[in-house]
């Protein structure tokens, strides 16, 4: 006799036409390898096809299924239900506008990444033609990514101070540190100027929540601290120089 376990999901529901969010409860079958995303897709298939969920790769590399499960940011496709207890509370990422149920508008992630130049493509690794000449087409340049960040937005949701839209946030600051580490033609002074701001690297409160939830091992917290070290090394000689020029000439 088969005794398949079931799990109770408490799912955040909120649509453009709703006055207020609510939590719907669904009991779905769950095996030892069932992921949160499997369970949500089971809800769509068996209980409520109107549940809005976003996903793509199903193996943790596209970053589209980021959500909060029992209060922690995870990629639903690689988070097993078995490890979570019962019930399992599923909510959208924090700090982002909800497009529908568990889907948030990712504009707040991309808007923060753009100014630092999104250092995601190595010039040396851009696809070339077979005859060795550079491929003039922009398509692969735009699509290929060679860095670890999958732009899932988990770090922004977990950061205790990223609720302020002026804060550049962990992903963008980690990207800035990457640019400074390996500029690949970018202007390091411009990037340093961008992050040397009250809402840039100095806004971080060293909670390291971003590093704890990052599914791609980027460790934004440590990157931000390295960035601050750079800024201090850059600032101190200038401050000392100014002191000698202006205070003790």
């Amino acid at each position, binding site marked *: 006799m088969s005794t398949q376990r079931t799990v109770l999901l408490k799912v955040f529901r*909120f*649509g*453009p036409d709703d006055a207020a969010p609510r939590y719907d409860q669904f009991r779905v079958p769950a095996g030892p390898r069932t992921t949160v995303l499997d369970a949500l897709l089971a809800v769509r298939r068996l209980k409520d096809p109107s549940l*809005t*969920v*976003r*996903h*793509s790769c199903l193996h943790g590399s596209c970053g589209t299924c980021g959500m909060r499960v*029992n*209060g*922690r940011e995870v990629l639903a496709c690689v988070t097993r239900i078995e490890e979570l207890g019962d019930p399992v509370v599923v909510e*959208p990422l*924090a*700090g*982002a*506008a*909800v*497009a*529908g149920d568990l*889907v*948030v*508008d*990712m*504009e707040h992630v991309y808007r923060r990444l753009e100014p630092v130049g999104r250092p995601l493509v190595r010039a040396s690794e851009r696809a070339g033609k077979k005859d060795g000449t550079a491929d003039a087409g922009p398509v692969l340049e735009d699509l290929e990514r060679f860095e670890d960040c999958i732009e899932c937005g988990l770090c922004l949701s*977990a*950061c*205790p*101070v*990223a*609720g302020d839209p002026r804060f550049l946030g962990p992903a963008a600051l980690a990207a800035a540190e990457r640019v400074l580490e390996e500029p690949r033609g970018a202007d390091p002074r411009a990037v340093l100027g961008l992050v040397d701001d009250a809402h840039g690297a100095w806004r*971080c*409160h*060293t*909670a*390291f*929540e971003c590093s*704890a939830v990052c599914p791609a091992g980027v460790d934004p*917290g*440590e990157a931000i*601290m*390295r960035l*601050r*070290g*750079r800024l*201090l090394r850059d600032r101190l000689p200038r401050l000392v120089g100014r002191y000698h020029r202006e205070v003790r000439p």
Partner: protein
Amino acid sequence: MTQASRQGARPQRRRPRWLDPRGRHLGTWAFVANRLTGLGLVAYLYLHLVLLSTLLRGPEAWDGLVELFRRPVFLAFDLLLVAGLAFHGLNGLRVALVGSGLLVDRHRALLVAAAILVGLVVVVAAVRILA
């Protein structure tokens, strides 16, 4: 999959996230504790100044206040104050070190060390205050 519509996106309720550290990691708890002890110390500073103004009402008023603060409940508050001060100072030192790019990979160990030191300071203070 249902495509997200930017026009239809609705902002979530704006509440400072640091106010709810449940389920969070050690770093967030340290951040919240640092902020709360900081706010507590600022509140204490103003309270202290207000209480000092009792001196303006003469020695009897001041002696009465001192007598009141020798009661056990206020001595317990003194210990709380010492604990908050020690944590805020030592964790602030940790944050300054880590935030300057130093000992970044040891930030958890530094927090544990700060917590142990706070415990020791509180024990010493308890012995001295309650003796």
